[in-house]
């Protein structure tokens, strides 16, 4: 079967298609890396997905990949050009977390996820833009640039992994890694029309992932197809001795879970996810997608997740609390930005942090510090943890009646750049539907399910803990029944 049956250029093919071309030696890894670097050169001035392009390193790694491909020692992702959200540590390559306070910081070690991708043969193209410290839903909180949505350059790509989603949508990488704390992979995936998975908490090592909220953060792939997502998950999942919260639960080969129909699968539909604030165009696309699941053989089940409405509020206690702690280390003493101002230690600390952090990060540090303060800790943090337990147990109960839960990923499609910057609450609402699964630590995927006003809509499928297989299987069946995955934004002149 010819893997290039259409007019798509190399950077728009899936990982699976590219691997086949590489295996057949129809293309070389260096050639492929060049094609992606060219695409970056062509479109990134408009998209601004990249903070750093590691062109030289990419070509070196691609040469190695060509050698291994020739000698038959190729890894599962050998020669596949990819890029990483700029909070995944890469030895020798600046890693800023989208923050001025880490400008110039070059990690002395590799994150486990990156090391595993390299072991599998993937080629690093560069580091991707993001909301500062992964705090935001539009990537406008980056200290360096605002990334544009490739489908409409006047709109946001979502966030905080906006660079990761936009790069995949624009063909600037075959796949990327982002991180998801309350929706930071899924929401931008939805807004950019790509696949994004937040794995079960503990599935992918967090070692080397610059922490935002430690009990919620998970690295996840952004890809053009569900199958690609499974391939990348195979490479990065599993126990890591450097991460005590990584899970020993065995990792199955997720590509074997991909299926074409949904016979015998019970899909839960929670009405709480279809209420106020949901754009009609989004609701229409998601309801049609759920009907499609039924047509594929799934049984639809009504489930109830009544605490959904508390999840957002409790998330904004727990995540900032942990962030205020995780960000305490940025004092300018050992790495990153240090202010020249201040007469003594305390003044210099204050100046460094005042100048180094952006307004959203400061807002969350203040929220979190307050929530952990003596006299407030019980009322906020402890109570929020109790709500979190309830959210989790509601999912457990729902999963007694269904195998996965289908919801919208984001209540809206991509919004205009700048339109929500002055209204943090409106921005926070972007994550209403993604936060509950984060709080419960369970896996959830966003898969493209159509368009509203010309902008992509995402369907979220939520699964049981460590059961990425079921949601990937269902997402794959859905994807195969539509052609959303083949649609690409028109950034480059056809040809």
């Amino acid at each position: 079967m010819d893997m290039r049956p259409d007019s798509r250029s190399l950077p728009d093919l899936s990982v699976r298609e590219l691997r086949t071309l590489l295996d057949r030696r129809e293309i070389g890894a260096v050639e492929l890396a060049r094609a992606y670097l060219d695409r970056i050169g062509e479109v990134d001035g408009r998209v601004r997905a990249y903070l750093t392009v590691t062109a030289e390193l990419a070509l070196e790694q691609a040469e190695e990949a060509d050698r291994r491909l020739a000698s038959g020692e190729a890894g599962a992702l050998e020669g596949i050009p990819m890029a990483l959200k700029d909070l995944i540590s890469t030895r020798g390559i600046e890693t800023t977390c989208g923050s001025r306070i880490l400008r110039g910081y070059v990690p002395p070690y590799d994150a486990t996820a990156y090391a595993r991708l390299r072991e599998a043969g993937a080629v690093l193209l560069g580091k991707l833009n993001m909301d500062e410290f992964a705090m935001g839903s539009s990537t406008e909180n980056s200290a360096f640039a605002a990334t544009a949505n490739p489908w409409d350059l006047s709109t946001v790509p979502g966030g905080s992994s906006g660079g990761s989603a936009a790069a995949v949508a624009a063909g600037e990488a075959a796949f990327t890694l982002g991180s998801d704390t309350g929706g930071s992979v899924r929401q931008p995936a939805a807004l950019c029309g790509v696949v994004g998975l937040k794995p079960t908490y503990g599935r992918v090592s967090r070692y080397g992932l610059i922490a935002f909220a430690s009990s919620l953060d998970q690295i996840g792939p952004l890809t053009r197809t569900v199958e690609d997502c499974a391939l990348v998950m195979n490479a990065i999942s599993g126990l890591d001795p450097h991460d005590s919260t990584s899970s020993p639960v065995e990792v199955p080969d997720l590509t074997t879970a991909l299926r074409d129909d949904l016979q015998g699968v019970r899909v839960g539909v929670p009405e709480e996810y279809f209420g106020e604030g949901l754009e009609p165009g989004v609701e229409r696309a998601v309801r049609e997608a759920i009907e499609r699941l039924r047509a594929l053989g799934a049984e639809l089940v009504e489930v109830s997740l009544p605490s959904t409405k508390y999840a957002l509020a409790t998330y904004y206690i727990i995540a900032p609390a942990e962030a205020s702690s995780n960000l305490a280390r940025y004092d300018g003493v050992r790495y990153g930005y240090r202010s020249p101002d201040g007469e003594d230690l305390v003044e210099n600390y204050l100046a460094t942090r005042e100048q180094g952090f952006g307004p959203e990060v400061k807002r969350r540090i203040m929220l979190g510090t307050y929530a952990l303060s003596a006299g407030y800790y019980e009322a906020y943090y402890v109570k929020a943890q109790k709500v979190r337990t309830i959210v989790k147990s509601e999912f457990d109960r729902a999963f007694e009646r269904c195998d996965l839960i289908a919801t919208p990923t984001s209540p809206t499609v991509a919004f205009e750049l700048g339109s929500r910057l002055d209204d943090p609450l409106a921005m926070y609402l972007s994550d209403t539907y993604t936060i509950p699964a984060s709080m419960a630590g369970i896996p959830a995927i966003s898969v493209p399910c159509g368009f509203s006003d010309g902008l992509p809509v995402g369907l979220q499928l939520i699964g049981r803990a460590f059961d990425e297989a079921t949601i990937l299987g269902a997402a794959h069946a859905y994807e195969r029944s539509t052609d959303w995955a083949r649609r690409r934004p028109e950034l480059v002149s056809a040809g």
Partner: protein
Amino acid sequence: MEYEAVIGLEVHAQLQTRSKMFCRCSTQYAGAEPNTHICPVCAGFPGVLPVLNEYAVELAMRVGLALNCEIVSTNRFDRKHYPYPDLPKGYQISQYDLPLAVGGYLTIGHMGEERRIGIIRVHMEEDTGKLLHRRGDDGEVYSLLDLNRAGVPLLEIVSAPDLHSGAEARAYAQKLRQILRYIDASTGNMEEGALRVDANVSVRPRGSEELGPKVEIKNMNSFRSVERALDHEIARQLEVVRSGGRISQETRGWDEAAQVTLPQRRKEYADDYRYFPEPDLPPLVISDERRRQTQGNVAELPDARRDRLAEQYAISAYDAEVLTGSRDTADYFEAVVARLGDGVPPKLAANWITGDLFRLAKGEDGDLSGSKLSPDLMAELVGMVHGGEVNQGSARLLLEDAFRSGRSPRALARERGLLQVSDESQLSGAVRRAIEENPAAVEDYRGGKKQAIGFLIGQVMRQTRGTAKADVVRTLLERELAASD
């Protein structure tokens, strides 16, 4: 009004592990160049995660068990926040409301009485780095940061407020260190900072149940300074309350040179450590089996060993106490006893070890590391004393020689002519000479002053340079004086 002092001690002990608490860096940083024993984890780089050193947990559990504590089956780590450059993450991983061990005690002997001092909790945490303050040529003050110590496993052991004087506090701290050393948990070295003692001191009317305002005392760098600092602080507080003043809750440091406690500079921010559970580490669950296993690794503790030695070897309670001051000396004593010949009483070995050997060693707590006198050699010497081969004085000389040279006491005695002479034929000449040269004493003896024989014995001893056996000399003299009557 009668007042009493109430003291609680917080002791920090570095655990004797090879690697740090949450990374693989070596803990052997003494004398090393600054920042040579660090990695991204203990230097608090972005994205790193802690991985618990299981051996640190083992040692900490030993301490908890040795202090008669309950091991908390599900305990956990928390983050304690405060901003200071020696704390690379901006928080210290510690244990807050679910510590490893709670509710124990240790027994101190004080003024001839045994007293149980409560242990409230034992918890694990990580040590901080060190700031070194310097002044440049331009006179400007700057600071250097050394993170070699950052992340070394620490144990905090918090006593109940059961102590009432500097001497008691000192006894408690010393006993605690003795136990830590017995179970190989810590070197307990105060000078090197492996053991740090802070105290909370208050005074209250005797009989009152309420505690007065607490003053925290820091910077006590030896057991002696613990005793002096606390006695000084108690006296200071008593003076304040007796003159109608009020004690303010504060932190004071012991000034060793001036021998006073002084208020430490107040912090510019209130202490709010914003503790919350460390999300990077799962709760630490200790199974019954693991606890039992560790219990098996807790060596015989000082008090139990003291009682056993006293009983098993029929030595005095005092000797047993002194011998069990450290595990090394107790081991040494038992090794010597095991090598003693039949009929040689262990008591004699105990006397020589606690007396002359300790005096020579002079190390605190009978540190015998400078001695070359192996248990074999010590047993040989004790056997010689018991068998009358040498007298006390000679034995003392031999012990000193062997302590430094590591040579056999018997060979040394032969070389130096210190073996006692009991052979009558070898002594008769000296006996006769003593009688001939001291007619006055002989006359006194014959005249009924029997004690005059002591003088004659002394003369024989002098002639033989002390190697003659005194009872043999006495018999010979009596026989000779009677014969030539």
